């Protein structure tokens, strides 16, 4: 099956089960397009985090096919996965900052992993710290940062490499409404620069904050598509149906 170049992600009948338990994700099929803003909603335990893990290549499904950036990532040898992970930025629900690294070093980590020279990363990391309002906390360790500050460091780390796709798992779950709105505005700004954004949230109020967003809804491991923009087999968004 040929995949149009501008389809960034395709899930085809994907299922995931742990051991012999029932499937936590079942028959999940959708496409994601570049430069769009997606919300993944659903109640707690609906499978949002599991679906995101498949998206950011932390897990392989039990069945089905997943294509990312035009490549079948299910059969991809694991030594080729890093190149695909570098095209994504991930904001984990629990931030997953490296405890013994400063805010600066945490944000610089994706660039260092990508082999950017120290001299070349100083400027971008400093800019990013300013962008998330943490320039004054550059040398602080995560343990000394507030929840909101940690959240912003995690976001800065996710976007520093200008990923093709940003995946954020409940990024507003640990912050007050004001900070949640700021974070969403930050994602929108990044989205306007061309990055596809996928935000998992169970906060339905957040959905209204991004008018052009598309919504995926998970219910007990099954995906519904209230906006009709995610259907599979793929078609261009806005091509009319």
């Amino acid at each position, binding site marked *: 099956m040929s995949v149009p170049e501008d389809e960034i992600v395709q899930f085809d009948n994907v299922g995931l089960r742990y051991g012999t338990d029932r499937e936590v994700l079942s028959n999940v099929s959708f496409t994601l397009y570049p430069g769009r803003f997606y919300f993944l909603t659903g109640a707690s335990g609906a499978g949002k985090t599991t679906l995101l893990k498949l998206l950011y290549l932390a897990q392989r499904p039990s069945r089905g096919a997943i294509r990312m950036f035009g490549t079948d990532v299910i059969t991809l040898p694991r030594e080729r996965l890093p190149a695909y992970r570098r095209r994504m930025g991930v904001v984990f629900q629990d931030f997953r900052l490296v405890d013994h690294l400063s805010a600066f070093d945490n944000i610089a980590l994706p660039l260092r992993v990508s082999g950017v020279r120290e001299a070349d990363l100083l400027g971008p990391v400093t*800019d990013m710290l300013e962008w998330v309002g943490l320039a004054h906390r550059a040398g602080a360790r995560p343990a000394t940062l507030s929840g909101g500050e940690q959240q912003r460091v995690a976001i800065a780390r996710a976007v520093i490499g200008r990923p093709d796709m940003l995946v954020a798992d409940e990024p507003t779950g640990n912050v007050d409404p004001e900070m949640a709105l700021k974070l969403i505005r930050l994602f929108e700004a990044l989205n306007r620069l061309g990055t596809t954004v996928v935000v998992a949230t169970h906060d339905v109020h957040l959905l209204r904050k991004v008018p052009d967003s598309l919504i995926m809804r998970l219910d007990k491991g099954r995906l519904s598509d209230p906006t009709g923009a995610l259907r599979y087999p793929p078609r261009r968004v806005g091509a009319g149906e």
Partner: protein
Amino acid sequence: MKKPPVLARAAERGLSPFSGRRAAHLLPQARLGGPMPWVIAIMVAITVLAAGGGLALDNLADRARGELAGSATVQIVEADPQLRARQAEAAATILVQDPEVAGLSIVPQEAVEQLLEPWLGTDDLEDAVPIPALIDLRLRDGADEATLQRLRSLLADRAPAARIDAQAQWLAPVLSALSALGWMAVGLIALLAFTGAAAVWLAARNALGTNRDTIEIVHLLGGSDDQIARVFQRSILTDALAGGVLGLLIGMAAVWLMGAQFSALDSGLVSGGGLENTDWLVLALVPVGAVVLAVYTARFTVLASLRKML
């Protein structure tokens, strides 16, 4: 909040090495540290001692073999002193004409009696037991059994009481014991290498477990197995270098002291077991081998563990 900075794809997307101090800083607890430099130092010191001992024994055996290779002893075992003397003269006359014989000397009877004095006392030994006449024989192409057999048959008529034995035969059990000790040293070195590799394996697995969260994060940020393995390699390299140098110094000092002690014994056999310059060079290479072994053990351990992660 300001607009996000335009990084112009600052992150190069190709796989590239993640190295240097910053890489080492990534996993501070990956430093296998703690006792590891000391463990490696002890391993290297014992290995240097074992290798030094093995090389000294090998040198000792080589020199002994070299000295005895062309030597044989003719004994005239005859109770009648006149007949014994005649047979010794006849044997010497026959042997000196043989092209295989490079030289010979009849050991004076007084010298033989002096040799036996500690065991038989100072009384007239000839009256106590018949003392054989001895001829020291030096052969051109070694004292192999075929040559000795031919010489025996030459003497059979005119010196029927003559017995010819290669001198190496007397020392064969000693040389065999030296060889066994040499192999024991090789075995000990192999065991030490295995134990050292096992210690590094355990330490690397422990460090992996301690840093599992960070490794997962690095993986999810696009870090490759090779990049993570390099961080651990760098860590063990530092430990192994420190331990190796310390162990070499301790081991070398111990070998030198042992050598000095044995030299002071002034025994002909033991003093032949000194170390050559090349032997000292071999000992100096022991920590290099230890470092290579430690680094590759850490690398393979880390890579094998990472393969279990996606």
